[in-house]
């Protein structure tokens, strides 16, 4: 039991930090431009595939640096040549543009790399057990992922709260025209922020790729959970996204590790009842309902606290 708790906590925090790496970019972009970037998870997937391809060509460490930059460039292109032109048609058009983009990116990725998972492996340098807890070896690569996530988190926080760049970005969030009058190029700030947000997603993809499965449906699997995170945390709230990411990461990891069902607690149902929704619910294990838990959380938070955990406004 203690083993399960320690390992699940570690994995949960790791998954949570990865979610935060993704949702931080999404949240900053959303609160800045009011655009809900549907293609954010697709940038994450692009990061993983660029990472895989560059690792094969030039090795993991150059890929670790280059792939997020490439994704950032793609993101800037999307902002400059897509979103900026669509802005005049309103936020729904922008949302639809990113929706179409997510669809197209998935198709392009499966066209180039195929629909089955690619062989994106942990670099040999990090392919050893870091430590052993209760006879389970905990891989060093996961520690590396955790460290990268934490470093990015702190760097993001410090940049936004303590530096001049963060000051201008934060001001541009709320008063774009005022910042423009002060001589800053607001359009370029938007483009750069979008690029940085996409690069963060790309970085998450590069480091998560070897640990999770790198294939063309990884964006579609993660995308909806990302939206749950930012609605749950409160739209536009970075601390909210942080708490929600960790919470959802932990809940999902623990749920996957638990094998109990109502039947295992209260005993099996009378077999004469046959197959019915009741027997389905009775026999389903907690591990099986792990995928739907985030959405259950979403519904609950909407009923009891519509602005999300740390959100300040309703819409």
């Amino acid at each position, binding site marked *: 039991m203690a083993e399960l708790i320690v390992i699940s906590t570690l994995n949960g925090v790791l998954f949570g930090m990865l979610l935060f790496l993704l949702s931080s970019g999404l949240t900053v972009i959303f609160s800045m431009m009011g655009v809900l970037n549907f293609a954010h998870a697709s940038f994450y997937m692009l990061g993983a595939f660029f990472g895989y391809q560059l690792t094969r060509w030039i090795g993991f460490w150059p890929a670790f640096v280059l792939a997020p930059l490439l994704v950032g460039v793609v993101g800037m292109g999307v902002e400059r040549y897509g979103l900026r032109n669509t802005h005049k048609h309103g936020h729904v058009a922008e*949302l639809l543009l990113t929706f179409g983009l997510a669809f197209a990116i998935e198709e392009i990725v499966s066209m180039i790399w195929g629909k089955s998972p690619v062989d994106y492996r942990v670099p040999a340098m990090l392919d050893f057990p870091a430590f052993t807890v209760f006879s389970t070896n905990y891989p060093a690569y996961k520690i590396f992922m955790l460290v990268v996530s934490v470093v990015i988190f702190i760097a993001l926080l410090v940049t936004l709260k303590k530096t001049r760049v963060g000051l201008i970005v934060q001001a541009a969030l709320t008063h774009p025209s005022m910042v423009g009058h002060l001589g800053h190029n607001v359009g370029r700030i938007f483009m750069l922020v979008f690029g940085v947000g996409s690069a963060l997603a790309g970085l998450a993809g590069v480091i998560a790729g070897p640990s999770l499965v790198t294939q063309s449906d990884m964006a579609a699997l993660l995308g909806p959970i990302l*939206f749950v995170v930012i609605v749950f945390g409160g739209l536009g709230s970075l601390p909210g996204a942080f708490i929600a990411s960790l919470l959802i990461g932990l809940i999902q990891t623990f749920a996957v590790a638990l094998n109990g069902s109502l039947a295992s607690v209260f005993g099996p149902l009378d077999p004469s009842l046959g197959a*019915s929704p009741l027997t*389905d619910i009775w026999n389903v294990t907690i591990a099986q309902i792990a995928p*739907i838990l985030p959405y259950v959380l979403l519904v609950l938070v909407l009923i009891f606290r519509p602005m999300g955990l740390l959100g300040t406004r309703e819409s």
Partner: protein
Amino acid sequence: MTNAATPAPAVAKEESSGALTFYGVWLLAAIALVVLPLIFSSGGSLTSFSLIGIAIIFALSYNILLGQTGLLSFGHAVQYGLGGFLAVHAMNAVASHNWPIPLPVIPLIGGIGGMAFALVVGWVMTKRAGTVFAMISLGIGELVASSSLILRSVFGGESGITTDRTALAPMFGWTFGPQIQVYYLIAFWVLISAIAMYALTRTPLGRICNAVRDNPERVQFIGYDPHVVRYLAYMFAGFFAGIAGGLAAINFEIANSAYLGATQSGLVLFAAFIGGTAYFFGPILGAILVTYLQLGLTNVTSVWQLYFGIIFIVIVMFAPGGIAGILMKHRPLIRAGTLGTVIPSYLVAAIPTLALVLGIILSIETVARFASGDAINLLGIAFVPTAPTTWAAAAVLVVGGFLVARITWRRVAEAWDRAATVARDRGYLA
């Protein structure tokens, strides 16, 4: 809009002729639905017509949300799928108990299923519009789609639940075994649903929905609750989506979890938006186009979904009104008789645009078939995907086409401005 610029008697005349065209259009639609299978009687075209009919109801129901009320839903397939599942279960129950319920009533049961789901979850979902609603609908859609794999006894797991439409009591000697009878059943429901949904746009509720879309605050000031209006619209959309789902269940004789999934929700969004959400007939055009492309392109290319995505992005960026919007923009020019001045510039712009499109198709197919090495047949010319000449041709077409098209489209805009000014002078608002 045109009424404002024309004198009062002309307005009255237009209204009476409007009523005539109104009934005329529905009558024509009914005749077309009856006659179509007599002209195109092959099994393949009957199947396509049936699929298009289902897609039309589904896309129109989606437009109650997106076009009428301004709610962008990413989970509309949930109501469609639940309607389908309820219809399948109803068919099985009717067949096993020998109840005297004929097949044509089954879609109604599907509709009630879709509406019932909307009744339960709609109140929480429709509290807010815009981005928040979009995300919640996505979450609810994922929740139901994932739950359907857990509740195996109801949803049949991955394989789904099958039924037999001929096991129900025949009606007027029709057993609904042959596809032609199923087609007429679908056609009947298409006409009924389309008229009902059009009538809905003309009711006070439909008008208030438009007002909620445009300015919810003012709706609140005049004493309506936008939340209730959105909730009602959501239920009606769920009802008609359920009818479409029920028809799909009858057509395929199976309902599975793919009915509820994100792909289905995405396709209906594509259909409604590509067709155009601002006009009632927009989603109909979109449903026809998307279903036709889906059926036609799958035989030609392995990456047909990518073309969908690209068409959608192009529409969002350059023609947010969809195909219906593009068509209706020309109406004042036709009335003022100035369309002729624009057409030559269109023809000039068409050539480089076509080159650009062909270049893009060639590039995509080159990448898609690079591994297999299958030749690309474009306008009767066979291109080998591994040959550098193919890449060069694609590059020339894309770059050259783009540069020339940019200039010619600027010309189109100028010609358009001139034509629109003349039209405006003659009293037709463009």
